């Protein structure tokens, strides 16, 4: 976590304590004024909704019409088989995505960290998909999956494989989605890993080589341990992003073949069942779980820093 730095000393007064404190008061007022627009947005659009979410979760709150308190009834949504199925699927998707994405991004980062002619072009190309929105990427792949003469299906034909139903079953939809997510995010995570790689002192490598370490030994015993904080950051981002997956499955399958994620379940509760209270209850629990996961990861990070 970023710690806020100690406030810089107020500009020194030049004539005595009373001038100084008058100046300090004026500067304190100016500072408050500058920060006000941001503070208003944070309060109205973040702090209030957080409280409202908790309040909604203990109320019967239909999409239209009046609300009234109903205790913890909304939390029964957590025992709903549809919700439990969504949890299982989301966890499965998170594990597969994080493993595949990390490996691909790590490979790209190792390949791209060396200074060679043309490396800037390659880096830009690998990153380019990240500049395309996730919804657009999903629609793009929707066309790839569904057109018989798309590069994907052409390749299948050329290799004399059976035609693939990319979105037709639970497993194929899961793997197809992991594929498109890897395409979209690999370059992004590559960039994160590269900033970590570049912060490793080159003399460490030289020392390892002088000691006769080979390529793999250096990777295993020097690069990976030193890269741990960056890898942890990548994990936090990938796990959080995957647990909250929505766009890709909402657009590709609409949740068919049991591919509804937790957030799709929240959406269904809110706008199909028109029960905002139950949706809020699931949101509260999701939020708590994610804050615990993030907190744990960040604590692990800080332990590394302290070492």
């Amino acid at each position, binding site marked *: 976590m970023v710690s806020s730095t100690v406030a810089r000393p*107020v*500009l020194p007064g030049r004539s005595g304590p009373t001038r100084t404190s008058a100046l300090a008061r004026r500067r304190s007022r100016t500072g408050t004024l*500058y*920060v006000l627009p941001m503070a208003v947005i944070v309060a109205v659009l973040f*702090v209030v909704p957080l409280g409202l*979410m908790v309040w909604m979760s203990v109320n019967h709150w239909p999409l239209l019409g009046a609300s009234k308190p109903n205790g913890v009834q909304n939390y029964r949504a957590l025992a709903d088989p549809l919700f439990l199925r969504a949890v299982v699927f989301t966890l499965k998707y998170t594990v597969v995505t994080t493993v595949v994405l990390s490996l691909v991004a790590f490979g790209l980062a190792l390949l791209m960290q060396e200074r060679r002619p043309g490396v800037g072009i390659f880096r830009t*190309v690998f990153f380019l998909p990240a500049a395309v929105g996730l919804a657009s990427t999903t629609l793009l792949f929707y066309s790839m999956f569904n057109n018989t003469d798309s590069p994907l299906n052409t390749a299948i034909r050329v290799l004399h494989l059976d035609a693939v139903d990319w979105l037709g079953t639970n497993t194929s939809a899961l793997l197809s989605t992991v594929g498109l997510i890897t395409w979209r995010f690999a370059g992004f995570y590559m960039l994160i890993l590269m900033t970590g790689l570049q912060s490793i002192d080159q003399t460490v490598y030289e020392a390892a080589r002088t000691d006769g370490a080979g390529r793999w030994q250096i990777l295993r015993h020097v690069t990976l341990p030193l890269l741990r904080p960056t890898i942890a950051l990548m994990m936090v981002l990938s796990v959080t992003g995957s647990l909250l997956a929505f766009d890709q499955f909402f657009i590709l399958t609409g949740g068919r073949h049991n591919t509804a994620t937790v957030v799709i379940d929240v959406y269904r509760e809110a706008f199909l069942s028109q029960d905002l209270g139950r949706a809020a209850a699931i949101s509260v629990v999701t939020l708590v779980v994610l804050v615990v996961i993030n907190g744990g990861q960040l604590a692990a990070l800080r332990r590394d820093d302290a070492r």
Partner: protein
Amino acid sequence: MVHTRHNPAGRVAYYASSAALTVVFLIPIIWTAYSSVHGRQAAGGHQGWGVANYHRLADYGLGLTAYLRNTAVVSLVAVLVTVTTTTFGGYAMARFSFRGKNVLFLVTLAILMVPYTTILIPLYVLLGWIQLQNSLLGLGLVLAMFQLPFGLFMMRNSFEAVPIELEEAALIDGCTPTSALRHVLLRAVAPGMVTVALFSFLASWNEFVAPLIFLTDGSKFTLPLALFNLQSGNLGSVDFGALQSGVVAAAVPSVAVFLLLQRYYVRGFTAGALKG
């Protein structure tokens, strides 16, 4: 791992694998752009080149220009609000001491910890109360809020990197803090502002869930939402040609802005802002 540099076999392997990966990463984009202007749908029935897909897209729903305009309005609101509030906020955080400063800083950064999609449901209710539901302005403000942690962190660091003597000199010359900001400091922190604007633009231009939940009136739809309707609206029969030209129309502005401002994007990473 620099010792492969002078090894010709290593060089061949390096360029072969990089080139193969380049093909993998570019093919989806190239194919989509190509088939948006080539093929039977694109050429209006016969094989060859044509812009029929774009004509159908332009006529879809309220028309492409309406959706582009809505998306631009939302992005503009988000970018303007993010940049102004975090520039003033970052200045205050870096150079002033006032009550509640640390609390505000931590609460703002906490936005990063709270998963964005979980507070959309209460935001939907709240925007209804303040008459900003189904409004491009309301949507833009919410998207700006999600950019505040990164923006504030970036701008505070930018201001802290400016030598304090520069500001003191301006104050001694008779500037008020506000005119020192306008005449002296803004130039120094401009790169940080561009980075914040870029991140805010890329996020809001491409946003999908928030418009899906907040916008109920078809005339307010942003482009990603309109394209989703194009894909899911006519049960079974999807106009893939129009869809692909829509993907191109949505991607071109954001890819172009990214390529143009690439070095500011990388700056956002190396500034360590993501290490939060």
